[in-house]
């Protein structure tokens, strides 16, 4: 035997006359023996009837005039009725503005904190390019400043080495000459 809850889901279809004949007969048999379900269906039928009989309203007398005004207004301000798309309506417009200002401030703050950045007041140089290397500075880099003395020292060492080699060769030659003697 089916429980009341199983029949309950058929009540609206029964009221609307949309149940198949067999299901309708089955439900009616249940309603005959179940006062609770019978009262529920009765109340639903009455309320449905009351809903269809709710007092009907008509629009106010100036409805058409107001509508034409709104349409004219929308036409004069463009197809969307606003300078901005609907996406920017309500809270979104100030939020987007705030985000844009925040992004700009962050951008300039980051530029300022970057050690490689160029002084913005120096208008002769491009702001976002790397610092230019001056021609004079190239010849005065530390390595190159020490390059010449390094070369001179190497030459002096080379001279003393040559002198030592010559002395060694002379000694060797003297020894050879002494042995021959």
């Amino acid at each position, binding site marked *: 035997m089916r429980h009341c809850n199983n029949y*309950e*889901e058929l*009540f*609206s*279809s029964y*009221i609307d006359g949309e149940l198949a004949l067999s299901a309708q007969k089955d439900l009616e048999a249940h309603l005959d023996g179940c006062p609770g379900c019978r*009262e*529920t269906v*009765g*109340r*639903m039928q*009455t*309320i*449905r009837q*009351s*809903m*269809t009989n*709710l*007092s*009907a*309203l*008509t*629009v*106010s007398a100036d*409805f*058409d005039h*107001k*509508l034409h005004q*709104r*349409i004219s207004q*929308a036409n004069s301000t463009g*197809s*969307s*009725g606003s300078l901005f798309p609907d996406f920017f309506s309500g809270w979104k417009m100030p939020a987007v503005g705030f985000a844009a200002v925040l992004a700009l401030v962050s951008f300039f703050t980051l530029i300022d904190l970057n050690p490689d950045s160029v002084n913005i007041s120096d208008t002769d140089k491009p702001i976002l390019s790397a610092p230019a290397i001056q021609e004079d500075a190239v010849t005065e880099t530390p390595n190159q400043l020490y390059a010449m003395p390094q070369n001179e020292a190497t030459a002096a060492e080379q001279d003393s080495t040559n002198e030592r080699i010559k002395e060694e060769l002379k000694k060797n030659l003297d020894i050879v000459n002494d042995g021959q003697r």
Partner: protein
Amino acid sequence: MKKETLRADKVTDETLIAQFQQGDVQAFDVLVRRYKDQLLNYVYRFVNNRVDAEDIVQETFLRVFKNKHYYKEIAKFSTWVYTIAGNLAKTELRRRKRRKIFSVSNFVNDERDFDIPDGERTPDQAVDGSIKDSIIQQAIDKLPPKFKEVILLRDVQGFAYEEISQILNIPLGTVKSRVNRGRLKLQEDLKFLFENDNHSKG
């Protein structure tokens, strides 16, 4: 003039919107004339405020006017216009809910029971038949939006289940189930009215 009206009455909504899409603004006026009152009744029962309801109906027609080329004849015009009006009504209810959450009055318990008819009726309630109207409206207000919209479309506006399914873009089975649950909830909330009737009859 009368002849023109008669001619317009025979033209289908779909023909009128097609004419409007071709630039015939008079066709739009006929559509407004046909739908303004029935849309008002639908939206009014939804938001329970006449000024808001009329504003929503105006906005509905404004959107029809501005977006006329989005209408395709795969659906009935009534389906399209009721979808627009219903969505605007639901947006209004959500807006009210948000406003209520942020309002100080949120701290006050706003749950009110139904007014049981008694000797202290207000003048508008005293008018014959209006008591049940206002009480039914309060019961409708208490329904969750997903039940409210199907009940209004089915029982107040008299749409077929299939068209409700198209207007709300939900399956037919879901529509039937929601109508049934909505009606069950209404009869539960309005049970006391019938008890009074039984007492008065007895």
